[in-house]
């Protein structure tokens, strides 16, 4: 594998909702430009909490998050777009009461004059959205919502995108579609970190993976190696459920 430029570094992160009850108990990872990295692990492992903590949505108690060497630990979430980080939540990642166009306008809240141009680019990239331009978000199907969420995140041209279970609630065919889009974004030079329950399908398209359990990393390595690792397969790839 060729050397990649590290975009995001997470070092010994401890985070959670209550000060005395950390959910992420000391997680470290790196994410390079052009990489698609997947975090898998059982329910309650702290995967979602980890990405939320990186995005500044969950309290960070210890550790460090750096973007291009710059400290962004416990960043105020509204500064994410300007810092070059996009975050796509698992649920509620679009505004259902706003029109598609208004959703994109909110996503470009921090942009000035470039906003109309960026929205036009988004419509070019996702022609379906243009068709529904003046419809409210709630009329979109699951797959279309995921595309809008992605279009919204891409509007500020992030270098790093964090995705919390982008395949949740989607049909298998749509999941493949979404994953291919994500692979394409990584290939275009962005750094993508995603949390997935759909572990096998996600790893098949990823460069590397981290296996999380009880708030920390248990195993990490190239995605292909994780897919072949009997321990990972047995515990996390659906052969046995662990609680």
């Amino acid at each position, binding site marked *: 594998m060729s050397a990649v430029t590290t975009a995001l570094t997470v070092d010994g992160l401890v985070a959670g909702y209550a000060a005395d009850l950390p959910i992420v108990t000391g997680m470290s990872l790196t994410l390079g430009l052009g990489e698609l990295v997947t975090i898998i692990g059982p329910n309650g492992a702290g995967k979602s909490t980890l990405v939320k903590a990186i995005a500044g949505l969950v309290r960070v108690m210890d550790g460090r998050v750096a973007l291009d060497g710059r400290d962004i630990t416990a960043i105020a979430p*509204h500064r994410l777009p300007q810092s070059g980080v996009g975050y796509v939540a698992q649920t509620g990642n679009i*505004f*259902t009461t*706003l029109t598609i166009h208004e959703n994109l306008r*909110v996503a470009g809240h921090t942009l000035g004059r470039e906003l109309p141009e960026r929205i036009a680019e988004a419509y070019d990239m996702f022609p379906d959205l243009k068709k529904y331009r003046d419809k409210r978000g709630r009329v979109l199907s699951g797959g279309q919502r995921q595309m809008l969420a992605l279009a919204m995140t891409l509007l500020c041209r992030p270098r790093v995108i964090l995705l919390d279970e982008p395949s949740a609630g989607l049909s298998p065919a749509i999941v493949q579609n979404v994953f291919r889009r994500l692979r394409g974004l990584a290939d275009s030079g962005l750094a993508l970190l995603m949390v997935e329950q759909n572990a096998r399908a996600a790893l098949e398209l990823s460069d590397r993976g981290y296996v999380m359990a009880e708030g920390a990393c248990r195993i990490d390595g190239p995605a292909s190696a994780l897919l072949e690792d009997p321990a990972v397969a047995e515990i996390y790839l659906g052969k046995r459920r662990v609680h």
Partner: protein
Amino acid sequence: MGQVIADGILTGAIISLGAIGVTMTLGILRFANFAHSELVTWGGYFALMFVVFAGTAGESFGPLSFGWPFVAAILFAGVATALLALLVDMLVFARLRRSGAKEMTLVFASFGVALLLRHIIVVIFGAQAVYYTSALQIAVEILPGVRVMPDQILVLALTVLLVVGLHIVLRYTRLGIAMRASAESADLARVHGVDVRQIVRWTWAIGGGLAAAAGVFYGLTVQLRPEIGFALLLPLFTAALLGGSGSVYGAVIGGMIIGLSESLSTLIIPTGYKQAVPFMILLLVLYLRPRGLFGEAK
């Protein structure tokens, strides 16, 4: 009948302006602010302060009871009430939010704020009713049997203007769209770069400004009393809930329905029971359609 409807529309306009602030606080800050109607009272008295200090010298506009100085008084009241709302948020609600207080804590705090605000008015201005001007106005007949004061027509026109203005802000501007986005999901708005604290401040300022307009209009067409806010509390909340919490258009329509039904009720029940009408409507709304007419199903 025509007269009763005209009176109802006027009351409805004042309730609508107040209810917009209530529904915005419900939508964006997610709590029922029982102090909001006191901002209506303060708005009325801020205009009075301006009138007392600056005087109302100068010519009146045609048949209206006031001239340019009172226009300045209305603007002063709007800005001062918006600042008062921001001050209350800074001193009370923002601190509670930061400490992670639950919704009910904020609601009870708002009761305290309401009492405090109301009694400061009594301390400063006394408990008696006051008027902006002692000039008498001649009512004009706009339709056969329907007589209204010129001031009342102006109040209605200004209300329409304010509501249309707010509609334009919410529908088309960057701020308005961000406000609606924050009302639906503050976290999602945040990760897209919206500084929700700023949105909260605008919510207070706009709600306060509109409450001030309601107060001034009430003072202009009825009278100023320290209990205006207390008397409006129930109508404002009923209008907001009837319209659907968070829905500005719902609040306006809700306000009109409350104003008209209060007024029309006097045709069949004694006037003294008029104030029970919003209560009845509130009960019906909560029983039959708790999310209101235009509320989003949750």
